[in-house]
């Protein structure tokens, strides 16, 4: 298959970034919001389309199958959803995005290992992958729990238990340690944690997934819209991290854009709902917000 030259891709990514930015700006005004969503969708179509055309596809069947399955599921869910169920569906979609970023970073690490070009991972790649995996897995599991609470399949009350902050800190510390292990690649435990499928990375995803559950399970159902807004910002950061792993400007720009804008939106939503952001962030140190 004939591939496009590199500069065409980069220009297409630039145009896509402009469409994302303009689309997001339009979505902040009632009159232009629908157009803004469309503009941003065109940016996505451009970025994905040009990527599919660019890369020499060794396994096009796998790729097309994935795109078809994903589209069918996405359309099916979006068409059937009731107005009242939309927030939790957005939560589920958001979780999928974060999870996908974590998987892409992991798959790229495996490619690094199996390609055999480098004996050890470049530090910046390992750091970016670890960050993407940590944030992506927290987003995935956190979003699913948040959606579950809104949908009533998970207990909507803030689930508190003794030592919960210890559990969260411990899970976070384990994730950071595994991330550091990926970066340093020491001899220690090498036969267990290093190898073609990069076990340390998948253990990191496991710890981060538990962290995501622990963080959201202890927040009350009423705070879930804010939690989903925050996790939306996280999934942007996870995509940006994956962009650093792949050296892909489209991922870095779009991911960071949503990461930053999503954070501001979370703050604004907190203010308009009279919630404290730190309370939502750390799973409610103070009880007063729950009793409001």
């Amino acid at each position, binding site marked *: 298959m004939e591939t496009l030259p590199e500069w065409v891709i980069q220009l297409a990514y630039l145009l896509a970034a402009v469409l*994302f930015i303009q689309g*997001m700006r339009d979505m*902040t*005004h*009632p009159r232009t*919001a629908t157009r803004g*969503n469309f503009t941003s*969708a065109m*940016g*996505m179509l451009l*970025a*994905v389309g040009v*990527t599919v055309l660019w890369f020499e596809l*060794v*396994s*096009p069947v*796998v*790729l097309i*199958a*994935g*795109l078809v*399955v*994903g589209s069918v599921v*996405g359309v099916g*869910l979006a068409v059937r*959803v009731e107005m009242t169920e939309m927030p939790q569906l*957005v939560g589920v*979609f958001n979780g*999928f*995005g974060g999870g*996908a*970023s974590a*998987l*892409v970073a*992991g*798959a790229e690490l*495996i*490619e690094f290992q*199996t390609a055999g070009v480098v004996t050890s991972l470049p530090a910046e790649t390992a750091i970016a992958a670890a960050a993407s995996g940590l944030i992506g897995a927290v987003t995935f599991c956190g979003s699913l729990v948040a959606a579950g609470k809104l949908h009533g399949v998970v207990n909507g009350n803030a689930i508190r238990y003794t030592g919960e902050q210890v559990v969260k800190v411990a899970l976070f510390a384990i994730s950071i340690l595994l991330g550091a292990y990926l970066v340093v690649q020491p001899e220690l435990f090498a036969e267990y944690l290093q190898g*073609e*499928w990069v076990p340390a990375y998948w253990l990191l995803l496991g710890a981060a997934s538990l962290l995501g559950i622990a963080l959201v399970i202890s927040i009350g159902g009423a705070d879930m819209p804010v939690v989903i*807004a925050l996790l*939306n910002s996280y*999934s942007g950061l996870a995509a940006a991290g*994956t962009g*650093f792993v*792949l*050296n892909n400007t*489209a*991922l870095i720009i*779009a991911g*960071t*854009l*949503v990461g*930053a*804008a999503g954070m*501001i*939106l979370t703050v*604004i939503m907190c203010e*308009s709902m009279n919630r404290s952001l730190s309370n939502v962030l750390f799973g409610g140190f103070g009880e007063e917000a729950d009793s409001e």
Partner: protein
Amino acid sequence: MTLVFNLTLFVLTAFLGYSIITKIPANLHTPLMSGSNAITGITLVGAVVVAGSGSSRLATAFGFLAVVMATVNVVGGYLVSHKMLNQFHKGSEA
């Protein structure tokens, strides 16, 4: 050098994202969240690269799963945002 270039993009875009959201009516909070959530599906671009390159079977398998999840995020995300905005317009005209 690539790292510095990527960092430049990251920092400048972070400022841009920070300044893009200024005042926004409360009833647009959820649609904007949904719309920006669809944008995070950009990770589909990365998933396409990984799934399509086919260098190792395991990486391809994870790539496939990532393509499915990211596509659900993109397609579903834009559709739901559109649906929300349509409802919103009906509501404001009535």
